Every structure is written in structure tokens, then in C-alpha cells.
């Protein structure tokens, strides 16, 4: 996915609840790239360069770990609120 697509997808999935600011998105993408979590591929689209971001193996592992942590956190919260 490329930058603009990420902002639109986040908006679409959360029905407009999550609006990513570009000022936060691009520095974060560059940081994740430097940390080896994502890698970038540049493609020429209609005469301009477009940078596509992909998860690396390290990134996929981290994504799985963080998803588990988030699920466990939400489960615990739900348990507390259901009491």
C-alpha cells in the first residue's frame, strides 16, 4: 500500500472514525522502514514515483505479537466491564 491509500483505507475501515494526519503518517512510515518493520518499493505510476510499503518478515512477526497483545487487552477490558 502507498501513503494515500493507507489514509483512505484507515478511514474506510473505521467509517471515518480514524483520520490519519499525513504529518504523523509519513514520519512513522520512515521510522518503521528504518527499523526494518516495513520495506519500500518505488514504482512509476503515470510518470510519477509511488512508494509502496510492504511488511517484512520481522514486521509480520511483530504484527502477530501486537495483535495478540491487543486481543488479550480488549478481552481483559471486556471482562472488567461485564462484571
Amino acid at each position, binding site marked *: 500500500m502507498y*501513503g*494515500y491509500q493507507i489514509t483512505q483505507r484507515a478511514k474506510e475501515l473505521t467509517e471515518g472514525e480514524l483520520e490519519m494526519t499525513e*504529518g*504523523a503518517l509519513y*514520519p512513522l512510515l520512515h521510522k518503521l522502514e528504518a527499523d526494518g518493520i516495513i520495506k519500500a518499493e518505488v514504482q512509476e*505510476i503515470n510518470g*510519477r*514515483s509511488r512508494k509502496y510499503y510492504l511488511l517484512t518478515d520481522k514486521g509480520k512477526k511483530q504484527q502477530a505479537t501486537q495483535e495478540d497483545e491487543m486481543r488479550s487487552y480488549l478481552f481483559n477490558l471486556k471482562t472488567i466491564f461485564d462484571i
Partner: protein
Amino acid sequence: MMTKENLTEIEKYLKSKNLSSVVFAEVYDHFVMQISELMYNQENSFPEAFLQTKVNWQNELKMVKADLFSFKRIAEIEKGVLQGRFRRMMIIASGLSLVLGTIFYFDQHVYLYIQEALIMTHLLFLMYHFVFRKMSFSEYQKMAFHPLLLRNLLLMLLILPLTNIIFSTTKNLWEFPLNHMFVTFSVILQIQLLYFRTKKINVLMV
């Protein structure tokens, strides 16, 4: 559909923001996509869509000082990217100078060998830049005023006299590991700056 003139107008506007080539390419693509969507989905004219996009991006493209010790003004979005890079460079330089400071404390000979190796690396990098015309001498002079080096210099000027006062000594200042750490920090930082320049990664060199 956007015309060639429209694209040139976007390009001209973004070029005025002094973005590095990598950030420029991404922001340019983002602008074109965002404007296109406003034109097609909301049936705005190009000037309306362009204006709306500029308003959406006004905080990100606001010109600010790159760093407290920087003389350069850059866009806020570039600052966000650069600050992350600066932090990483500082961590590497601080960690390595701490290790070398510890080595100096235990064995000055080993420390001197490592320090020589670092200085040689720095000189080799410089030679590479000068021989292959990657950097002019005036650019090298400007590198001496890099905000990270200025920060180190300022800290050094504050701490060196303090070391003298705290230890109430007139002994040679070079006998303190802390002072060597500052030198190591500066050399490692310069190696990193030259390395990033070789890789064409923006670290605010000139």
C-alpha cells in the same frame, strides 16, 4: 482530468517547501491523488481542490526551524522524519562513546587504537567524498555547523569547566574519560553524516 499545467503548479508549490527528494516524491503523489479525488468525487474544480488540499496540509507543510541549533527552515513533515533520524544517530553516537569512555577508563592503549580507527574511517569517508566529488569543501565546512554537532559542542562547553570545578583539579582535562567521550561522539556523528550523504539520505547536511 488534471492537465500538465495543474501538475506543474502542484510541483512548483511543493518545491517551495524545500522537501528532500524522497519526501517530495511521496507528498507529490499524495497531493495528486487527493486533488484527483476531490475533483472527481466532489466535482470540485482544480483551483478549489488544490486549495482544499493545501489547507488540509497546512500544518504539515508549515516552515519551521529544523532543530533548536539549526539555521535552516524546513517543512514540519520533513522535521518529523529528520528528528527520528537524528534521535537514532544520537543514540548510536552516545552508546558507542559510552563504550569507548569505559574502555579509556580501563585501558588507554586499546582506546587509542579504536579512536585512531574511527578517525581513519572518518578521513577515508571524507577522501571518498572529495575524490568522487560527492561534496565540496564549502559543504564540508557547513557540516561543522550541523545542529547535532553544535549540540555536542555546547554540552561540551558546559560540562568541561564543570569537570574542572567538581574535581578541583588543574590536571590535564584529557585525563577524564568524559572529555574523550565528547570527541568520540563527534567523530561517530560525522561518520554517520557522511554515510547518510553517500546513501543520499537527508540528514540536513547543506
